[in-house]
């Protein structure tokens, strides 16, 4: 393999966004007939690097060669012409068009547009690799995995032989993932070069032939998958051997705080998101929620926070004296009016938890602006709170009048968590609290959550990293396809068991 010319050779690629260096002098080779896993933590610059290959971004420095010839990729069109196709994490499809129309978008085939002919060719591609898709179906009628299929077909239709997939499995059920992997192997055997961007080690081990690792925008190294192991890859990803060693104090006097019974939730389109979910969250305890993403975690938290209409079931808040109060049917304001202090750190920090264009002080006000009787807002205490949060949580910001969207991910999260715990909550809901944060910031957040737990708060922690969940949570609830797959004690739980529970139930439900 060593004497082959790489299909893609990237050298010294550097890309900056303002002060952030997303890629710093990265080297990367991609070969045909091989699946390369591009591995790295969130924010390590994997997607940025591949976006430069697919023409979305233009590198500040560095050079790219395809089959030994130096090229300039100015636009996605240039990339297509070079046979590079990328399947983005956020699908690039036009909702109101059909699959066939999306596939031919941007192509300059000779002759007039004949959608029947296109459909015919799509069916041909489907047969060759084992996809199933109706070329005339509108995208807005499709499931996530169907949309992904359309994306892949789109790239193949253009005759791409260098395929890049950005976290393709994040939204798939295990069955769909297996199917996808089978297809990818078919393509590799067909002589195509395939890159999958991921941060899941088991996928790397299962699928790839070679693995390349990025850390903080820098290229750390690459090697054949067979010659490495999970421990080594983890070390390269995070920079030093990690034993996570997150504190896990014993819960003090846990009492039931939130009781969820037979909760069922449907999305607006009628898709079942939560199916008969029941559990209890205790005070002074961290209840971890595990599951592959899109299994109802978001809906569960939003239902408790009063943001998600529910179909049936009940969510009760239990006071210290054992009195129960129903939360369903109440919006966040009504819940607060009941005297329930419920804090929620949502997944989408700048789209939901904070207002990106407002400064720190104004963002602190989001929770408290209604306080006081008058018509006017109190500006002093939010400023004070902002100063305290900046000081206590060591938020790196020029001043408290800086719009939060200018802060880095970790600092944004500190501001959000800082505000949410400032109201002395009795319940704290967090979704992907450390997503996109560096290791140090992550530990700050774990520490904050633990302090809340010690203060007797019932914490519900939705996480994606099983290792963290296993070390942080007192109990772990595993969701699978909207159902509770099981609840296990955090202490002594085996990663493999939890991983199995995440996928087991999906077997029956996924194909609906």
């Amino acid at each position, binding site marked *: 393999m060593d004497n082959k010319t790489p299909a893609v050779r990237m050298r010294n690629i550097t890309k900056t966004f303002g002060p952030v260096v997303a890629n710093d002098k990265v080297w990367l080779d991609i070969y045909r007939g091989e699946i390369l896993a591009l591995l790295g933590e969130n924010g390590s610059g994997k997607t940025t690097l591949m976006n430069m290959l697919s023409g979305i971004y233009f590198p500040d420095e560095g050079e790219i060669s395809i089959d030994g010839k130096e090229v300039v990729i100015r636009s996605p069109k240039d990339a297509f012409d070079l046979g590079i196709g990328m399947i983005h994490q956020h699908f690039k499809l036009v909702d109101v068009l059909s699959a066939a129309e999306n596939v031919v978008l941007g192509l300059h085939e000779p002759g007039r547009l004949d959608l029947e002919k296109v459909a015919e060719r799509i069916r041909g591609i489907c047969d060759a690799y084992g996809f199933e898709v109706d070329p005339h179906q509108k995208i807005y009628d499709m499931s996530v995995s169907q949309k992904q299929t359309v994306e892949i077909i789109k790239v193949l239709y253009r005759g791409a032989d260098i395929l890049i997939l950005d976290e393709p499995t994040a939204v798939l059920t295990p069955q769909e993932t297996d199917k996808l992997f089978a297809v990818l192997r078919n393509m590799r055997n067909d002589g195509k070069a395939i890159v999958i961007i991921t941060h899941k080690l088991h996928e790397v081990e299962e699928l790839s032939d070679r693995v390349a690792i990025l850390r903080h925008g820098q290229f750390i190294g690459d090697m054949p998958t067979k010659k490495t192991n999970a421990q080594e890859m983890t070390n390269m990803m995070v920079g030093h051997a990690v034993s996570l060693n997150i504190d896990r104090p014993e819960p003090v006097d846990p009492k039931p705080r939130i009781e969820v019974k037979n909760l069922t939730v449907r999305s607006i389109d009628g898709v079942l998101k939560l199916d008969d979910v029941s559990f209890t969250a205790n005070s002074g305890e961290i209840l971890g929620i595990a599951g592959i993403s899109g299994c109802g975690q978001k809906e569960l938290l939003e239902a408790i926070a009063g*943001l998600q209409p529910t179909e049936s079931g009940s969510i009760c808040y239990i006071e210290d004296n054992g009195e129960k109060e129903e939360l369903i049917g109440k*919006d966040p304001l009504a819940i607060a009016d009941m005297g329930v202090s419920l804090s929620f750190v949502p997944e989408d920090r700048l789209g939901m938890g904070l207002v990106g264009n407002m400064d720190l002080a104004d963002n602190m006000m989001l929770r408290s602006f209604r306080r006081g009787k008058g018509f006017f807002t109190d500006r002093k205490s939010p400023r004070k709170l902002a100063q305290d949060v900046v000081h206590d949580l060591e938020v790196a910001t020029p001043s408290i009048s800086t719009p939060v969207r200018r802060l880095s991910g970790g600092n944004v999260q500190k501001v959000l968590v800082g505000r949410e715990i400032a109201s002395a909550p009795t319940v704290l809901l967090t979704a992907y609290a450390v997503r996109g944060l560096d290791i140090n910031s992550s530990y700050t957040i774990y520490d904050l959550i633990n302090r809340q737990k010690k203060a007797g708060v019932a914490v519900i922690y939705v996480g994606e990293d099983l290792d963290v969940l296993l070390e942080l949570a007192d109990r772990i609830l595993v969701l699978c396809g909207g159902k509770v797959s099981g609840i296990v004690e955090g202490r002594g739980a085996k990663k493999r068991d939890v991983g199995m529970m995440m996928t087991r139930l999906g077997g029956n439900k996924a194909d609906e």
Partner: protein
Amino acid sequence: MNKQIKGPLVHIVKRGNMPWYGAWGIRALAIVLALVACALVTTVTTGENPIQVYAAMIDGAFGTARKTWITFQNMSVLLCISLAVTPAFRMRFWNIGAEGQTLAGCLATAACMILLADKVPGWFMICTMILASIAAGAVWGLIPAIFKAKWNTNETLFTLMMNYVATQLVAYFVILWEVPKGAGKIGIINQSSELGWLPQLFGSKYLLSIVVVAIVTVLMYLYLNYTKHGYEIAVVGESERTARYVGIKVEKVIIRTMALSGAVCGLAGLLLVGGINHTVTTSIVGGRGFTAVMVSWLAKFDPIIMIFTSLLLVFLERGASEISTDFGLNQSFSDIITGIILFFIIGCEFFINYKISFRKAAGKED
């Protein structure tokens, strides 16, 4: 050495932040350039020395005490309507129906003046006028807001259509109430009795609307920046999801804000009919509803800066109409001048928000 990479020639990146003096410097430069462009256009069409032309413009706007008063009076009405649309814009609700909302206020005022004449005492009539005009404007703003809140109906197009419904409604009543029959216009209402005419302040017929609008400006500034409502508007405008997350009822805020927006437009209608023109026609608002959008936008939705942007636009209009009289040109010359200046100011925002870097002309290539 390797060859230099040939990147795109011009590369555009979003600017992080520009200090306020930089931003206003660019805007000032844009206005200067616009004035030069206008001077060129004027010279080409009139053959006059541009400096004289600008002198004529200043003379037209501020040449005599009366001209100055009229300029400020016009400005007050424009500013009032601009203030009205601002809360909606801060909420990202594109209310371009201020024309219709003001017209509704005008119509309600005129209706009170005509229908209640000689039936109620003057003070009572004025109270009714105030209430009716504000209510009419509010209703006109509420209708699109309710549909936006419930069904997310496109507000830009809805409010636009409402303008013409209002215009035709006025046309209907103008014929219904025309004086004398068959004239096709109402004429000055209650000319002899001056019933329902808003009082003059300190003996000046110009001062009232200026004072009222000055008060409205301060109130609007406080409302938007220091009240709970103002804060809610800002949050809804920035992100509806965040608003829901903190328990703000988005529908309620949309409806409430548009009612306010319409109500202030109605107030402008009251000033126009009750205080200034004492009549109503289909063209009484004269496109101010649209100009107000630009006033508000140019001022970045800040009520205080709007004082200056509205003055600028009124100055252009009055000044250019002076030029047209002086040189025997058509009145519409002012619209052309206004348009050109607006294009420059609109265009210059780009240079505030984005940075252009050209491909480095590397020596290696030559």
